[in-house]
Each structure stands twice: as C-alpha cells, then as structure tokens.
C-alpha cells in the first residue's frame, strides 16, 4: 500500500474535504436541493432510502443513472452513489457518469458473497462500511479511501453504529500498545496484513477518515457519534422520513460542526417535530439485518 501515491492523495484528499460535515441520502433533485440548502457537504443519490428498501424488500440495486444525473445537475456539492458489494460493473457505470464517491454498500443486495470490489484501479474513491477493525483494514487493503460504520441502516436506531464505532476505537487504542512481535499474531486474528497494522500503530489512527452511518436520526445522535470518534456523519433515512426534513437537516448539520457545544446542540434539538419512528434492533429478524452483509 502506498499512502503517498498521487492516486491516494486525490482519493483520501476528497474524503478529508468532507470531514466535519453531513452527507445526506436523497432520492430526487428536490431533496438534493433541500440537503444542499441545509449545508450538507455531499449527497448520496439513491432510488429508495434504506428504510423503504427494508419494508419493500426485493433485490436492491444501483440507482438508475438518469436519476443520479438529475441530482448531479441540481446541486454543486459532491454526489455519491451506491453499488452492490462486489458488483464492479455497477461501480464502472457510476465512474462513467462522473459520480464523485462510490459507496460499496451493504444496504443494497450483495452481488458477490466472497469478494468485495478491488477498488485500486478506479479513479473514483470508494467508501465502505465496517463493524470492527479487521473489516476496516480489509476494506483499506482493497483500496477504500473512506470508511463508515455499518450501524443498522434504515433502523433509525443509533445503537449499532455506537457498537461499531466503539469496537473500532477500542482496537485502535490496543494496536498502539502492541509489541512488534505481537503484530503478526494480531494481524492473523483480525484478518489483516501486518504492514497495515504496523502503519496504524505508527500513526495511531486509521490511514483514511472514518465516518458514522446507520441509524443517525437526531442532532444528539450526530453529536454522540462525533464524540465517539466519527469524523463526519451520514444520514440515510433519518431526514426524509421525519416530519420536517429541511429543519432537521439544518439541525443535524449544526450539531455536527458544534458537537462539543452543548448549548448549540440543545438549541438545534428543540421543536424538531417528529423524528422517524425507528426500529428496535431485536425486532429485526436476523436474516434481515443489513450489517451482516459483507465480511
């Protein structure tokens, strides 16, 4: 892995530009405008938000390029789009239409149960979900330029994102105190390379930004995830499944910037109308969990 290459500077560089901001799921040009006006740093263009994918079922695929192009025309901030895990042909299409970032996402139905996409040959950066340090480092080995917690998309419940962020932060701390002779054994146990683990030990952080996703629904959720170590926030269903999306979007943006200024987070939490209803994680049948897709 050459983290000093030009290719890496450009890919991770764009991820750096999105730090401290909010990336919002949108399903049409009007929603994209609302997101941009609220101060989103990027939008994720998709046909159905995760909460609807969950209730409607069926195979969830990459969005229609026509829809993505309409959203690209509507806003001047970066536009991201999702492809299925392992579906490199969908990723090639997204690159061809000039998407700024590709999310190889467990929210869509996986196309390959064995392999994720080899992301190195692409000019466009990728973001991937992860639940623990091993998954995070494997995605980086494959070329991901940004990570995000998987959380449980479309649930409106922050508990899984918290679990995943804490798991990663705990292991990051542990890696910094590993002796050199422990690194190979540790790498084998988490399914990553000793080189990458050594890199993390040296720099005391992941080589790419790590954002929070999967269940963010309120300004307080955003502040919580930032305080736990997230560098930005993805909001999927949480905005456009709430009663007043424009107001909630603005509130989550401000709470993310000022996540340690509790007067501002309190102010932004006031009178927001109803949040999305949300799901108790234990009520989701195990075979319908999105976070267990990919490895």
């Amino acid at each position: 892995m050459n983290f000093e290459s030009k290719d890496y500077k450009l890919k991770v560089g764009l991820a750096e530009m999105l730090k401290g901001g909010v990336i919002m799921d949108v399903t049409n040009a009007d929603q994209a405008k609302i997101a941009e006006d609220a101060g989103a740093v990027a939008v994720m263009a998709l046909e159905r938000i995760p909460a609807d994918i969950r209730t409607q079922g069926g195979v969830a695929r990459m969005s229609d390029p026509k829809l993505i192009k309409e959203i690209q025309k509507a806003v001047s901030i970066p536009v991201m789009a999702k492809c299925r895990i392992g579906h490199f042909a969908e990723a090639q299409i997204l690159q061809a239409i000039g998407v700024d970032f590709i999310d190889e996402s467990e929210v869509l139905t996986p196309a390959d149960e064995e392999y994720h996409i080899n992301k190195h040959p692409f000019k466009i950066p990728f973001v991937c979900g992860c639940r623990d340090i091993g998954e995070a480092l494997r995605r980086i080995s494959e070329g991901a330029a940004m990570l995000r917690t998987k959380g449980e998309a479309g649930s409106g419940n922050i508990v899984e994102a918290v679990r995943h962020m804490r798991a990663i932060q705990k292991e990051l701390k542990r890696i910094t105190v590993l002796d050199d002779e422990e690194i190979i054994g540790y790498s084998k146990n988490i399914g990553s390379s000793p080189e990458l683990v050594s890199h993390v030990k040296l720099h005391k952080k992941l080589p790419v930004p790590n954002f929070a996703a999967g269940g963010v629904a309120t300004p307080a959720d955003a502040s919580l995830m930032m305080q736990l170590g997230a560098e930005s926030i993805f909001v999927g269903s949480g905005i456009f499944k709430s009663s007043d999306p424009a107001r909630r979007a603005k509130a989550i943006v401000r709470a993310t910037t000022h996540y340690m200024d509790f007067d501002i987070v309190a102010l932004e939490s006031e009178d927001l109308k109803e949040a999305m209803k949300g799901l108790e994680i234990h009520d989701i049948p195990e075979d319908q969990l999105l976070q267990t897709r990919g490895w």
Partner: protein
Amino acid sequence: MRIGVAAIQGDFERHQRVLTKLNIETIPVRNPVQLRDCHALIIPGGESTTLIKLFKANQLFNEIKKFAQKKAIMGTCAGLIVLANKIYNPPLESLQLIDIEVTRNAYGRQVDSFVDNIRLNLYGKEVQFEGVFIRAPKIKSTGQGVEPIGYLQNNVVMAETSHILVSTFHPELTDDPRIHEYFIEKAKGILK
C-alpha cells in the same frame, strides 16, 4: 504566535498538523470568541457552500471580515472561494476580502481531480511545488492590488494581497511546509 484554523467543516486537521510540525500553536475556530484569540487564520478546503452558510449561522462571517483588517488570512481551495470578491458556478455570497473572480469546480468532478507540478514565486525566487487539485476552482481574473504568485501552465493558482494568501490547490495535503512557512512569515510581518 497562535494561528486559528476555521473548523466548521473540511480538512482543518491537515492544516493544524502542518502548523504543529512547524512548532506553531494552533486552535480550531468555530465561533467569534475563539477567533479573537488568534493572530492569523486559515480557512481550509471543504465545501464552500457549507462554509459560507455556517459562517453566517455562527456570526463568523462579519467577524472574519473585521479580522482581515488587522491580521493575515490564508485560504485553500474552498477557503479561496469564500474569500474571493465574486463566485461563479453557482454565484454565492462571499467574504470579498481579495479582488479575484473564481469559478467553482472549474476542472470538473472528482474524476477530473489531479496532481501536477506548479511554479511558485516566493521571495522573488521561482520554485516548484506539488499541486493537489481536488474538484478545484479556477481564478478567472485578478484585480488591482492582487499579486499572482503561483502558476499551473498559464493559470494563476496562488495569489496574495497585503493580508490575504489564497491557493486553488491543497498544500496541506503534501508533506511540503513551504507555503505554510511563507504564510507564517507574512502573518508575523503584519503583526509587527
């Protein structure tokens, strides 16, 4: 000397990392109180639309304008955009602290982002620098009192006035601290 980095959104940590390496004290700036404690300010790369909206929401917009009358400000990429007199693609309100006209995303989308060698004119000497251009803007024109000091082919990519230093690329994404050093000297000169 303490340099603030606007930490509304964007790669502010990368700027802080360079400053720390140069033994300069640095703080993240999210409100006017924090700004008042600084001897100079850097506005980082990020999304210019978001930066402008949140500067306004946090009363930083007018505070930064006042700050510029007495102290130095550097802006990279989005930071350059928000400091410019006029913005195109699309038109946005800006701080109007340097007389340049700027087109956002002028090279295209992320697929058109690139790294290329640029020429800088620092202290009357021409030097090379690695320019990292990410969804970068272009300087359409420079007005009176604005000195172009960086070029990619014939395009101006870095410029300055007595108090303001701007670049369309990201020196903070390289390990080369020369542009930050140049800004620190500029800021010190103004304080004297």
